[in-house]
C-alpha cells in the first residue's frame, strides 16, 4: 500500500482518537465543580487548620509557626475528661437511638401499609423547626417542675429531694437522641424497605421461626442501613455542643464545647485547632474499626 493511500485512514484514526479523548474527559468535567468546591472549602481550610494547630503565641502578639506539638499533648492532659465524655455521650446516644430507631424503621417499612408515607413525613416534620428551637423545647419538657420530672419523682425513679433531669447527663443524652433519631431511622428504613419479602418466606420455608428469620435474614440485610445510621448519629453527636449548652451544665461539657469556647471566647486558635484535629482523627479511627468489625464491604448494596 502506498503512503498516499494511508493518509485518509490515518486522518480518520486521529479523528477517532480525538473523540475518544474527549469522551474520557467528560467525567472529569462533570466532577470539576464538586472537586473545586471541596478543595476550596475543605482541603484548604483543613491544611490551614493543621498549620494553626502547630502555631504558638496569642492574639495580641500574633501567632507563629513553631511545630508546637505541645498543643496536642494538652488535649490529652487538660481535656481528657471532655474527650472521654464526648465518646461516652456520643456512643451512648447512638446505642439508644439505634434501640429506638430500628423498631421504628421496621414498623414503618413493614407494618404501616398505605400509611407509610404519612409516617415518613411525620418523622421529618421536626426538621421544619430550627435545631435550636427544638432543643430549647426540650428544656421545657425536662424542666424541674415539668410533667416528665414530676412523673418520674412520683414513680420513685427520681429522688424526692433534688431530683431533676435538666443540667444532668441524662438531659444531654435525651437531647442527642432526639436530634439524631431521623438520621438513624431513614437509612435503616431504606435498607429494610428494599428487602425482598420472598426472602423472609424462604427463611420460613427453611424452618426458621419469625425470630430466627429476623436475626438470620432481616438483620444482616439491614446492616448497611444500620451502619449508615449509626455513623450519621455518632459523628455529629461526638462534635455536638448545643445540647450540652442548652440541656446540660459545665459538668457535662464535651469536646465540641471546648472547641467552641477556644475559638470564640478565649480566642486561642492553636489550641482549638489541635483539639478539632484530635477529635477528627479519633472519630475516623473509631469509624474505621467499627466498619471493619461489622464487615460492611461484604454486604449487598
Amino acid at each position, binding site marked *: 500500500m502506498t503512503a498516499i493511500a494511508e493518509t485518509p485512514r490515518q486522518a480518520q484514526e486521529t479523528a477517532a482518537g480525538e473523540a475518544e479523548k474527549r469522551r474520557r474527559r467528560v467525567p472529569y468535567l462533570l466532577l470539576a465543580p464538586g472537586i473545586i468546591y471541596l478543595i476550596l472549602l475543605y482541603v484548604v481550610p483543613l491544611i490551614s487548620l493543621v498549620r494553626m494547630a502547630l502555631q504558638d503565641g496569642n492574639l495580641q502578639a500574633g501567632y507563629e509557626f513553631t511545630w508546637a506539638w505541645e498543643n496536642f499533648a494538652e488535649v490529652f492532659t487538660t481535656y481528657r475528661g471532655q474527650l472521654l465524655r464526648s465518646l461516652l455521650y456520643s456512643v451512648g446516644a447512638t446505642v439508644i437511638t439505634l434501640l429506638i430507631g430500628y423498631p421504628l424503621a421496621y414498623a414503618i417499612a413493614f407494618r404501616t401499609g398505605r400509611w407509610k408515607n404519612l409516617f415518613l413525613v411525620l418523622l421529618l416534620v421536626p426538621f421544619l423547626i430550627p435545631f435550636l428551637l427544638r432543643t430549647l423545647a426540650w428544656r421545657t419538657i425536662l424542666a424541674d417542675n415539668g410533667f416528665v420530672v414530676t412523673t418520674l419523682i412520683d414513680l420513685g425513679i427520681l429522688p424526692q429531694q433534688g431530683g431533676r433531669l435538666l443540667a444532668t447527663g441524662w438531659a444531654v443524652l435525651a437531647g442527642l437522641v432526639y436530634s439524631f433519631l431521623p438520621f438513624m431511622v431513614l437509612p435503616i428504613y431504606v435498607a429494610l424497605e428494599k428487602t*425482598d419479602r*420472598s*426472602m423472609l*418466606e*424462604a*427463611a*420460613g*420455608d*427453611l*424452618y*426458621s*421461626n419469625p425470630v*430466627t428469620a429476623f436475626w*438470620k*435474614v432481616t438483620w*444482616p*440485610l439491614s446492616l448497611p442501613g444500620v451502619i449508615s445510621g449509626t455513623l450519621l448519629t455518632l459523628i455529629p453527636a461526638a462534635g455536638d455542643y448545643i445540647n450540652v449548652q442548652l440541656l446540660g451544665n459545665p459538668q457535662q461539657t464535651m469536646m465540641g464545647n471546648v472547641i467552641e469556647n477556644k475559638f470564640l471566647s478565649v480566642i486561642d486558635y492553636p489550641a482549638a485547632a489541635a483539639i478539632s484535629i484530635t477529635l477528627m482523627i479519633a472519630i475516623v479511627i473509631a469509624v474505621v474499626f467499627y466498619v471493619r468489625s461489622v464487615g460492611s464491604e*461484604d*454486604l*449487598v448494596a
Partner: protein
Amino acid sequence: MAIGNEPSQKPAVELDGVTKQFVDFSAVEDLTLSVDDGKFFALLGPSGCGKTTTLRMIGGFEEPTSGVIRLHGENVTGLKPYKRPVNTVFQSYALFPHLSIFENVAFGLRRSKVSDAEVKQRVGAVLELVQLVGRENRRPRQLSGGQQQRVALARALVNHPRVLLLDEPLGALDLKLRKEMQIELKRIQQEVGITFIHVTHDQEEAMTMADTIAVMNQGRIERMGAPTEIYEDPRTAFVSGFLGASNLMSGKVDGDRGAVALASGGVIQANPNRLPAVGAEVKVGVRPEKIQLFAPGDEDAPPNRLPGKVTDASFIGVSTHYLVDTPQAGEMTVVVQNLDDRRFALGEEVVMAWQPEHTFGVTG
C-alpha cells in the same frame, strides 16, 4: 441417591374443598385434588387462575378461607410454613445475598440443628446432584441465572422434604436454558423420588415433565390427568385451547353412534364416549396435526372429510402450517409433516380428513 422416604399409601398432597377468598375476589374455589407420592404433578393455567395461590396454601404462605389440606394424611391446615414437611423453590429464587452458596444450601439444615459433619456431607451431595460443585464459596449474585436456579433447588432438596413445591421455577430463564432445566428437573425428580408440585403457565413445560397435569382456570380445575389423556380428550373448550391448538366446530349429537351434525351442515364422526347425550349441543374438535390434506376426490381419505380452500401456507422446517377456509367450520389450522414433496398452494381446493377417534367433544 434416594432422598425420598418410603413410598406412602396415603396421597402425598390432598386438598379437600379448598377455597381462598381475597378481599375482592376468590382466587381458588372449592378445589379438591390428590397427588400420589413420588409423582411429578403440574398445576397449569394462565396468570390469575389461582395456581400460585394453591401452591402457596400447600406451602403454608397463605391460609385457605375454608377446606382442608393434608400432607401424607396429616392435616396441616393452619400450620406455619416452618412446621410443614415441604420446601419451596421460589419464582424469584429468594437466595440470601449475604450468605455463600454453601450457607444458602445449608440454611434449612442449620435451623434443624443438624451436626456440622452431616451438613457438610449433605450439602456436598446435593450440590453434586445439581452440578454446582466448586461454587460453594461464591455469593448468589456471582452466579448466572441458571446456576442460581439450581442453588434454589438444592437449598430445598437438601432438607429431604416429602413434597417439593416449585413456583414457576424456570420462568426467568431463557428458552434454551429452560429446555435444559426441564429435562434436568425431571431427572432430579426421578433420582430423588420426591413428590414435585410444579406451577407453570407453559403448557409445553408441564407436558414435558409432569406425570399428571391439572389445568386450572378461574380458581377451578378444568381437567386433570396424564398429559396424553388430557391432550387427546380435553373435554372443555378452555383446555383444548390452552393445551395445544384446536379446531372447534359447533354441532348437535345426532344418534348414539358418535355422529355429530354440524350447525352449518355436514356430519362429523367422533368417539361416542367423548360426546354428551343424544340431542345435546356440543363443540367437536380436532388437533391440527391429526388432519391430513387430500386433493378433492381422493378415495384414500379417512371418513371425516371437510372441503376447503388453502388461504395460507407457511413452511417451518419440520412441518408446514396451513390455514384452510371451509364453508362448514370457518378457518381451520392444519399441520402437515414434511414427509413428501406434496405441497398445496395458496387458493388450491383441498379436502381435510381425519379419523373419528381423533375427534373430541368439548363443552363450554
